[in-house]
């Protein structure tokens, strides 16, 4: 429980509050509930994808294939909906999740058992998964009119003012928090990334942990694949192209160390929220498109610099880290 919100997260949260207030002062419509609801819905996929990516990064890995996985899983879900429209919605979603899980297991297997570096494996599978979409769908795209009504209606359903993707993101976030903080396997991920040698001496199976991390990443990408396809009403090979970089950026902004072993659910969620706000605020502010890219990039850099400065403090305190690993051993 200790360190649920640390200095870095506090700073990021503060920047977010000030930023949102400033945007709201300039364009009050940004603070309208409707806009906040849109923002959360638009960001819900990023929340989940960033959390899953964090789990991978914790083990000193990286999963570049998440966006391709999302697109392929989404395509499978869409095809099920197109050709078997009577399938219960839950099974269609499950089709996406299982596809994602299998794709994640492939990544995990190649990394853990063949010992190929994660960046190489996922760079390769990224291309393979995107290519698979074209092969499986015969090059066609699945349009809104070809997907079932229930399939597309689900992400629009509202409960207590929030849409279903937001509720799913909340549920997934809680699961991640519990998993990473309260379970042995979850703590093992930190241990494997923080100090692989020590983790091995503690009897933590690195291969198992890696398989676990990439499976989680894959399954979440599969779930998000369904949500994405159903929300935007189209499935084809180019959806979410380059989205893996947004996901990794969210992690980095949220204080996840690319070196492994460091990262929290709260920080990652804040990082994703930060990017979500940037993405939704720029259109509402009607900032010139020629500046949008530059502004997004500058904001990311600024956030990372602030994060890096904040990170220096805990670096001096080696003992709490050691204690954490010690707790795993105990």
């Amino acid at each position, binding site marked *: 429980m200790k360190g649920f919100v640390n200095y870095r997260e506090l700073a990021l949260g503060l920047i977010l509050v000030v930023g949102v207030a400033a945007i709201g002062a300039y364009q009050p419509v940004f603070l309208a509930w409707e806009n906040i609801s849109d923002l959360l819905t638009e960001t819900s996929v990023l929340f989940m994808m960033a959390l899953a990516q964090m789990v991978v990064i914790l083990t000193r890995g990286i999963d570049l294939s998440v966006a391709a996985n999302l697109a392929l899983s989404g395509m499978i879900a869409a095809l099920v909906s197109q050709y078997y429209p009577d399938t219960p919605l839950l099974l269609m979603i499950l089709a996406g999740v299982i596809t994602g899980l299998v794709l994640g297991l492939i990544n995990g297997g190649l990394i853990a058992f063949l010992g190929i570096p994660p960046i190489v494996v996922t760079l390769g599978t990224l291309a393979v998964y995107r*290519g698979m979409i074209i*092969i499986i769908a*015969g*090059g066609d795209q699945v*349009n809104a009119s070809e997907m079932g009504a229930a399939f597309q209606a689900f992400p629009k359903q509202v409960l207590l003012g929030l849409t279903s993707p937001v509720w799913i993101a909340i549920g997934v976030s809680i699961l991640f928090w519990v998993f990473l903080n309260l379970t042995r396997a979850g703590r093992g991920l930190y241990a494997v990334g923080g100090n692989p040698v020590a983790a091995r001496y503690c009897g933590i199976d690195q291969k198992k942990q890696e398989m676990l991390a990439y499976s989680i990443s894959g399954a979440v990408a599969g779930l998000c694949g369904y949500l994405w396809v159903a929300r*935007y009403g189209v499935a084809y090979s180019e*959806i979410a192209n380059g989205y893996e970089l947004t996901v990794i950026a969210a992690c980095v902004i949220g204080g996840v160390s690319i070196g492994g072993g460091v990262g929290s659910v709260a920080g990652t969620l804040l990082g994703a929220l930060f990017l979500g706000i940037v993405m939704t605020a720029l*259109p509402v502010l*009607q900032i010139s*498109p020629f500046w949008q890219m530059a502004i997004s990039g500058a904001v990311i850099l600024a956030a990372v610099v602030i994060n890096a400065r904040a990170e220096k403090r805990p670096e001096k305190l080696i003992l709490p880290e050691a204690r954490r690993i010690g707790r795993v051993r105990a």
Partner: protein
Amino acid sequence: MKTTRRTVLQLAGAAGAALAMPTIITTRARAADKRIAMIVKNLGNSYFDACANGAKEAAKELGGIEIIYTASAKPTAEEQIAVIDAQIAQKVDGIIVSANDADALVPVGKKAAERGIKVMSFDSAIAPAGRIVHLSASSTPLIGAKQVQMIAKTLGGKGEVAILSAASTMTNQNSWIEAMKEEWKKPEYKDMPLVATVYGDDQDDKSYREMQGLVKAYPNLKGVISPTTIGIRSGAKAIVDGGLTGKVFITGLGLPSEMKDYVLAGACDTFAIWNPVEYGYSSTMIMADILAGKDTAEGSKLSMGKKGETTVGKDGEAVMGEPFEFNKTNVEEFAKVF
């Protein structure tokens, strides 16, 4: 640089190739007086299949013409050259090509000309040295003007309008937007101001967010023009999802199969794109004129059958006409085609 329509279609094409299609398929009818080969970018592309149907329609109307519809499995210049060579060996009378590379096809075009075979291009041009005529589906001024006219018709000429484009760096998008602004100068649009131009980068999610941003930033917004197939479908979805149907209308360049639901839902009143059936038809009619020995110098007129006439411009370039309009009455029918 990608053109909005072609991106989608090339994907479809690439996929057809991936499905391990046989390398060359030719459809052949009985012997006729004249044989015209229509060689498109690749096989398995429903857009070009529709073009070929138009070509066959023209052949039927003219009589005595056989259409040989063929292509390579992959949309590459090398494979396309092999297919053209095969048709030259078959001694066809005319070749209509949608080129995979403007310059790479010049030598094979010249080779055909030496053997007395007439070559023209459509959809995607061969450089002028390699063909007699290129028929463009439409021209920048026509595409720009058409879209402004469509939104003006939907809105009755009143209300704020915005443009939802692809990327700010795309040449074709920018030249269409320039053409729209040119049309906008006319007095009949004085009550229909252009309030913003935003860019969705031809990504569904970004286009969707830009559309959401537009309606929030401009509460009085009535219409949106999106000259890209991805922008218009994502924008239309954002209108439907946001419960804005009837308050905000979108128009632009879209594909019937993607726009069907949104047109029926009322988010989009009319949209346009060139009609591939008409495109194949007009190209074949022009080829028939060329084969009949009609003059193709700059300023000469060629027949496009029931589509009227076109005037050959500089470098043998001709234009079919303004984009074809789709609405509630015909979108379902064309959604089956492309």
